[in-house]
């Protein structure tokens, strides 16, 4: 089974981060992402140290988090290369049309760190929060938008279903792929065009099955009288606890430290 896709997946463990209210984690993640854009030079050390501390507390194995990075490695490297070669400034190295500038080098490194920290920060949230809790948290946080007729509940429900279906569809893909390989299908060799064509026996059954599952799910929801968010109560309503207050204090202190260091020391 292809277990490389860890973005958006839950990692069960018993840690202080897992126990936090999903809203706390959402807000904290947002604050952390904002903090990444404050830093200039040395501030990233602070950002990474903070992230490392959170990862250690969360008990999610670091190797597991790195796997999540693999899927974005291509975009990451591409973005870094663009910045490295295309930023104007003091030229450090030149070969033909290619040149590396001091500014480009700095930009590429900063951007790389920023992106990695951003992805890791966000995946800490999804890895320590079940999809259900995550969407409950979003629904609650975006609740005020209902005044403007934003279908907050429906959006949250769609998100939770989409997240819930990722592992199911992954498994399904794996099954169909193996079934076709058992009939001699070859997904690995040939040029791009041949390979794209070889995907047809995989994609057609996958889509058919996705639609079938969607239909079944819709029917099962209706059979249980689901009719949208109106008047819907929750079995486990969200409550903030002492640890959430502590978490807010810590993340705010971190943000304050980040701003102060940036303003005073130019970090």
């Amino acid at each position, binding site marked *: 089974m292809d*277990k490389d896709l860890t973005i958006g997946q839950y990692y069960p463990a018993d840690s202080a981060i897992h126990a936090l209210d999903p809203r706390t984690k959402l807000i904290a993640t947002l604050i952390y992402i904002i903090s990444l854009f404050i830093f200039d030079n040395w501030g990233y050390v602070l950002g990474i140290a903070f992230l490392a501390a959170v990862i250690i507390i969360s008990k999610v194995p670091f190797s597991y988090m790195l796997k999540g990075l693999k899927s974005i490695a291509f975009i990451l490297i591409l973005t870094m290369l663009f910045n490295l070669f295309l930023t104007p400034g003091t030229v450090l190295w030149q070969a033909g049309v290619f040149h590396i500038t001091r500014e480009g080098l700095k930009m590429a490194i900063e951007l790389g760190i920023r992106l990695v920290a951003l992805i890791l920060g966000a995946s800490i949230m999804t890895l320590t929060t079940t999809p259900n809790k995550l969407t409950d948290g979003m629904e609650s946080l975006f609740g005020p938008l209902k005044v403007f007729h934003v279908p907050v509940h429906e959006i949250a429900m769609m998100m939770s279903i989409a997240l819930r279906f990722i592992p199911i569809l992954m498994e399904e893909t794996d*099954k169909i792929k193996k079934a076709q*390989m*058992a009939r*001699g299908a070859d997904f690995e060799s040939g040029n791009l065009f041949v390979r794209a064509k070889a995907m047809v026996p995989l994609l*057609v*059954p996958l889509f058919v*099955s996705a639609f079938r599952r969607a239909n079944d799910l819709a029917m099962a929801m209706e059979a249980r009288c689901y009719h949208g968010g109106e008047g819907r109560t929750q079995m486990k309503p969200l409550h903030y606890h002492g640890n959430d207050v502590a978490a807010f204090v810590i993340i705010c202190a971190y943000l304050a430290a980040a701003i102060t260091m940036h303003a005073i020391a130019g970090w």
Partner: protein
Amino acid sequence: MSLKLDHVNYTYGIGSAYEMHALRDVSLEIPDGQFVGIIGHTGSGKSTLIQHFNALMQPTSGTVSWNGEDVWADGYDRRSLRFHVGLVFQYPEYQLFEEDVLTDVMFGPKNQGLSKEDQQKRAEDALKLVGVPEELYRKSPFDLSGGQKRRVAIAGVLAMEPSVLVLDEPTAGLDPRGRDEILDQVKYLQEQRSITVVLVSHSMEDVAKYVERLIVMNRGEKVFDDTPEAVFDHYLELEQMGLAAPQMTYLMHELSDNGLDVDIHADTVETAEKSILQALKKRAGEI
């Protein structure tokens, strides 16, 4: 042309929180022409085991060999192995994808590199074997009923004319008639074309009726590997694994315990009937 597994282990998700030993030290050999049954509780490693048969899964340790050659050796053509060891997955109807039934069944032979005529001939033969009527050949596979889709999917593997046919719960979710038809057809194939058949099943009745050798899997280990009669003698142990012997085995044991001289190894309705009648006659003769 035998298939051999030697001390095969398989572990899922090594090093993660989901690590699981799906197979533990499994060794077995399947000679030509045998009708083998594999039973086991859900999660006992049956499906993992059969995916080692055609090299869809690579053992964590141990070797899988076909005709004495290690299929995971460098440069071994595992794709052509899959034409020899045909594997029909559970609910195979979900793998159908072509515009019409015939083209879908031709997918296997096409991958084998056969000519268009041969592909079509193979496909038609296979469809005939599983009992799909000719008027359905040009229909979309998605318009067929569940049972017909299942037959088409099985034909898709049969069309490759494998020498070993592995079926994972081929009758799950079918009605009794569809079930008997498909299994009778498989038995016919095994006898007429002398192919090897491996049947994974939950149904003790099916296993008792068709197979000549029975492998029982429990928690990734091979627990029993013998004739069905000999395996069903351990019916109390089977129950502890969440399995059971066929209904008839229970009946025959009960009768035998109560003093009727019946064959406790009779495990199908037919053999049980014969044995009971014989015992009754014998008793009547004695009186």
